[in-house]
């Protein structure tokens, strides 16, 4: 069968011969992937900010929002129940979630060197759980390994924008962003 006119899959930037330093860095990256997967930050604790009254506004002081940045609903409607009650019921058996199952597949694809498949699986997980900062971080790691630095950077920044109060994940993402900064030719 003939191939289509063009092969639109973007191929990673041609990799020069790996220096030992680079190789050890890749090992470090792999370790980071595994660690990141293990941590699997479930940072979706929803903080509801003080309900502010609609204008005209009462003089009584509204409580200060928590100093810690946390995922919040910007501006909940005053008279409505807080949106913490997401319509998604909790899984009955939380042992294996769809994302943890997919992340395990991501790991084995990455370990087998099939980064394209790893990326596709991360994105499948993201379609299920699009605001999971860790999933964006995993995708950023794969893009970095594919030497698609610009995409890796944007994806990592998106992860950071969702990391909320997860200091460990924030540190990991910032480390990756530094590496991307130095990895870009």
């Amino acid at each position, binding site marked *: 069968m003939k191939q*289509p006119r063009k092969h639109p*899959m973007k191929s990673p930037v041609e990799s020069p011969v790996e220096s030992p330093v680079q190789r050890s860095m890749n090992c470090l990256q792999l370790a980071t992937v595994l660690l990141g997967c293990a941590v699997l930050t479930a940072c979706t604790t929803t903080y509801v900010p003080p309900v502010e009254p609609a204008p005209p506004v009462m003089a009584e002081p509204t409580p200060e929002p928590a100093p810690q940045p946390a995922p919040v609903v910007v501006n909940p409607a005053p008279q409505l129940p807080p949106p913490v009650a997401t319509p998604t019921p909790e899984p009955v058996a939380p042992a*294996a979630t769809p994302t943890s*199952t997919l992340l395990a597949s991501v790991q084995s694809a990455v370990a087998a060197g099939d980064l394209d498949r790893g990326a596709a699986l991360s994105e499948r997980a993201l379609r299920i759980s699009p605001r999971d900062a860790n999933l964006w971080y995993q995708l950023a790691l794969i893009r970095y390994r594919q030497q698609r630095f610009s*995409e890796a950077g944007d994806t990592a920044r*998106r992860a950071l924008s969702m990391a909320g109060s997860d200091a460990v994940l924030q540190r990991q993402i910032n480390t990756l962003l530094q590496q991307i900064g130095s990895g870009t030719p």
Partner: protein
Amino acid sequence: MAGMASPNSSTGRSAPHAPSPRSPRWHVPRFVWHLLLWSTLAFAGWCVWIDFEVRRDFEALQWALPARIYSRPVELYAGAHISQQHLVDYLQRLGYRRSAQVAGPGEYQQGEERVRLRTRGFQFWDGVEPPVYAELDFDGRHVHSLQGEGASELALLRLEPVEIEQVNPTTGEDRLPVALNEVPPELVNAVIAIEDQRFYTHHGIDPIGIARAMWANIRAGGIVQGGSTLTQQLIKNLYLDREQTLRRKAEEALMAIALELHFSKEEILTAYMNEIFLGQDGNRAIHGFALAAQHYFGRPLNELKVDELALLAGIGRGASYYNPLRYPDRAVERRNVVLTRMHERGDITDDTFTRGQKAKLQVREKTGSRSGYPAFMELVYDNLSRDYDSAALRTEGLRIFTTLDLTMQNSVEAKLDGAVKAVERANAKTPLETAVVITDANTGEVRALAGGRQRGYSGFNRALHAVRPIGSLVKPAVYLAALESPDYSLATVLSDREIGIPQPKGETWRPQNYDREVNGDVYLFDALERSLNLATVDLGLKVGVPTVVEALQRLGYNGDALPYPSLLLGAVDMTPVEVAQIYQTLASSGFRSPLRAVEAVTTATGEPLAYYGIETTQVADPAAVFLLEHAMQGVFERGTARGALNTLGDRMPLAGKTGTTNDLRDSWFAGYGNDLLGVVWLGHDDNTDTGLTGATGALRVWATLMKELDITPRQITQPAEIQWEQVPARPVADAGRRDCNEAMSLPFHNARLPSVDYTCEVNESFFDRVLDRFRSLGQ
């Protein structure tokens, strides 16, 4: 045979001119011998040519295969957003059979609370999804639990995608080629029983069969039986365009013999199974048994029962005459003839025979959506045209995986016409038209698309092609440009007062608010929530129109927008899809993802060719987008979209913006929750006035659709730079006159906190903040 006769008959015709039989041999004229010799040579040459032709054509036999286009596959897991009814609808689209007990793949059982099913498995672009057994409980519109065989743990399950369209080859032929070992043996038996009982022993033509057929025809006084073999029928099908003359018949017979000489019975049978014409579906010709199984029964070949296989084998003789969708009685009669033959030959047991004859014909239900999704498909072809030409799509059997959410698309189509009717003026001269774009708010994948209000509408695709002024939908770009600069915050006081802007040609542009009122000093956030035109012009002119155009382009607008002040109020034309792109970036906190309708392309056998993954590019400061969203949520809570609270009150917070254009020609709404983004446009094709604003028209349609789609409330992460401050409820330009008896809390970028003179913060925190300022300066 007839071909053989032709040289003889020419000798025969020459006989009267020849001398009597008693004459000596040498009296036969030379020219008769010449004629005989040349005829024989010509015949031999003809045979050689036919032999060559058949070999060449059969060896090169490679069908042009249509591209198959699939919907997004349904993912099932505890918490997945799908109701029991929607799941069952989807399974029926896949041709799953409802049964009392799930025995094989492609079957499901529906209890009151529980659905049990066994999937077929599928080769996706990212690997194989194996067939599995699963049980699901539901909790309203969500999956409550998912379990595997024997209540085992099953975290995630991906169903097969639904084939929504094919791109047919120019021949109009469609087929699903199968190897012989994928064909159920019962089908092979049925075909041989009804078409060619001596298939394995003859050499292409079957003299016994022909004699018997002739005898049967003579007795019946008409054509009741054909004597041609499977091989001859295959030839006939392969060269279908040839006219049926005696010479062609002879040629077919010779070709059949040649084919048998060079190819095995298995090769010939395989070709027959895939080539035979079995029906017509619009402009698409159904070839081969595998596709016929899908066409008539909606299920794959290996899931059919003996009676269904016998029916398919039977209709080969006259696909339109025995069409089971149209003439079920004829088809059943024919099926029973096949079953009888099979029974006589000992292919099936007495029991199978009796049950098969009694079996009720269960053809595919006419879904009615056979017309497909033309508006969405246009976007798919547009996406594909970047990488594939139409020849590749028509011949190579590509599998194209799209982002279309069938459940969502069907819900939109089911509700749209009624929702438009509900806002349409009773005395409208032309029908009110609409366009709808629904995307995944996080990834930019297009989930549903409507190019008009009628279901399955295939005319002018307004979602892609209706280029209209966007009115106030442009305002978020104005406010984002402001909030990104260090000079503005949500508490900036704008002037909502009459203004005259000199135009290049000498006249003066005098914008007005929609209600023709002026509001004096207003907060920036309030001006966006209430969509105040005068305050927006005040802000936009201070920020600079080119800066606004630049923001618009960063958000994803690719066209040229002239930097005139009227742009600030929406004098820029866009299609609904272009608007969706801009709001997509806002919904994703300033990360732009191109809208996509295609996710992946594989070969016919499932090898990945292309994967169009999630792209994301940061184009705006997430903190500025967070501030903007505060006001865009306010649009629902206090502003122009608060009318939607009746419908969507339990879905708040949501973010969005209304849009209305001059003389009420266009009514727009663009808005998003956590999961979905939707853009609705309403207007007349002749560009006349609709009598609707964004709030009285498009917003109401949007709310009806989003209620149906079960949009989820916004939950976004507050960036670390955000700090909340108290400001006076009533905006005053003069700080000395601020009234802190009534205060409210607003989010600020911590590098752009309002001047202490303007806030209502208490003193302790004031000193802290001064100290903080010094600290930050020192860094």
